[in-house]
């Protein structure tokens, strides 16, 4: 797998990796400098392919875009050592500020949820079994996960309604997310999953349906779910409806 992962650089630059693999490969890039350099060159190359099919958009689009940006607040820049909010900064860096402010509120929630989860282990077992039935279709992932020596099963409520069960194992490098009765959202919105380590938040992909299996990188310790514009965002733009330790 390790030898093989290098060969994914082309597929990654062409954005041809399925979501889980994309996240895993990005994790690999942070640890493999030569891969990172190669990928940058290949991404530049892929962009040239786009120039070859350039086509002027309708003129009206420009005025719409210009009108729109006058109403859109820009993201703040990444600041290496922000002076405020020390307790949060101790674990979360700069470019995740909008999310981390909220996280303080959610931290209390996480502790409560953990306790509640322990209290409802019976329910968790049932729900995990239901989740497994779904996951079986995706290749018995959950069965493998549950067998992992460090597997953790958690039941977490979702803000606005519904619940989620998360099964995570760092040894297997995966999290299974299974939800039920999530609040319906507009077709222009999507549920997006996030993984966080001590320094950053990265997308774990869009949630289509009720369950998903996402690749876990070493150091990931929290899982979040937000509602984002269709197509997803690079970083969370709304308050998470679920945030939990994994």
């Amino acid at each position, binding site marked *: 797998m390790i030898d093989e992962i290098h*060969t994914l*650089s082309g597929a990654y630059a062409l954005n041809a990796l399925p979501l889980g693999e994309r996240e895993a490969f990005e994790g690999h890039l942070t640890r493999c400098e030569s891969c990172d350099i190669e990928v940058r060159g290949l991404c*530049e190359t892929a962009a040239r392919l786009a120039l*070859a*099919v*350039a086509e002027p958009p309708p003129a009206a689009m420009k005025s719409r*875009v210009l009108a729109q940006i006058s109403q859109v607040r820009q993201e703040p820049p990444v600041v290496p050592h922000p002076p405020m909010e020390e307790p949060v900064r101790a674990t979360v860096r700069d470019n995740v500020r909008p999310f981390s402010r909220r996280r303080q509120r959610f931290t209390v929630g996480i502790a409560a949820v953990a306790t509640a989860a322990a209290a409802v282990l019976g329910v968790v077992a049932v729900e995990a079994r239901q989740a497994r039935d779904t996951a079986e279709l995706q290749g018995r992932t959950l069965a493998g996960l549950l067998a992992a020596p460090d597997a953790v099963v958690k039941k977490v409520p979702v803000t606005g309604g519904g619940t989620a069960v998360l099964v995570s194992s760092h040894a297997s490098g995966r999290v299974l997310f299974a939800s039920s009765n999530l609040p319906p959202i507009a077709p222009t919105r999507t549920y997006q999953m996030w993984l966080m380590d001590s320094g950053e938040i990265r997308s774990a992909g869009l949630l289509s349906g009720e369950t998903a299996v996402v690749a876990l990188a070493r150091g990931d310790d929290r899982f979040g779910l937000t509602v984002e514009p269709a197509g997803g965002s690079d970083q969370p733009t709304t308050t998470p409806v679920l945030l939990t330790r994994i």
Partner: protein
Amino acid sequence: MNDVISLVPAPGEGREPGLEDLLVRVARGDETAFERIYDALSAPVFGLVRRVVRDRAQAEEVAQEVMVEVWRTAARFDPGRGSAMSWVLTMAHRRAVDRVRSAQASADRERRAVREEVAYDQVAEAVTTRLEGERVRRCLDGLTELQRQAVTLAYYGGYSYPEVAGLLQTPLGTVKTRMRDGLVRLRDCMGVDR
């Protein structure tokens, strides 16, 4: 809008200066700089999104979202990690692909894929209308058949590599490798300086 050619450095040269500086100014809220970025990149963004999404109305919607996203997240652009053009077009490609992958049933996509060979011819045709396009075309022609199909199905078609492997009835490992060595050959042919 016809500055497409000037965006691309000749082989051996460094990146065209300008767009990177403009994008840094956009991050500070400079709307004039943004307008220049728009003029320079909206055509490749729209053309690429349209190639992937196909539907013109949807492509317009996605391209518009991408340009607003450029404005919103310009502070994340790091000139040390690549060109402004690549940053914007990577975002555009992801948005387009997310749109088709979330919206389309896979059966539907597979049916559509049968016609993909035609799509390459169209690409080839659009390509010949531009100087830069000719270089890209020549470089594409320099690939093996399998390399070229793997690269164009993924990039212009928006297919994942397992989908490409299915379409080409070729093992997954081979497709991954062809995507990589195909792009490497293109990189060297186009004289990308990274």
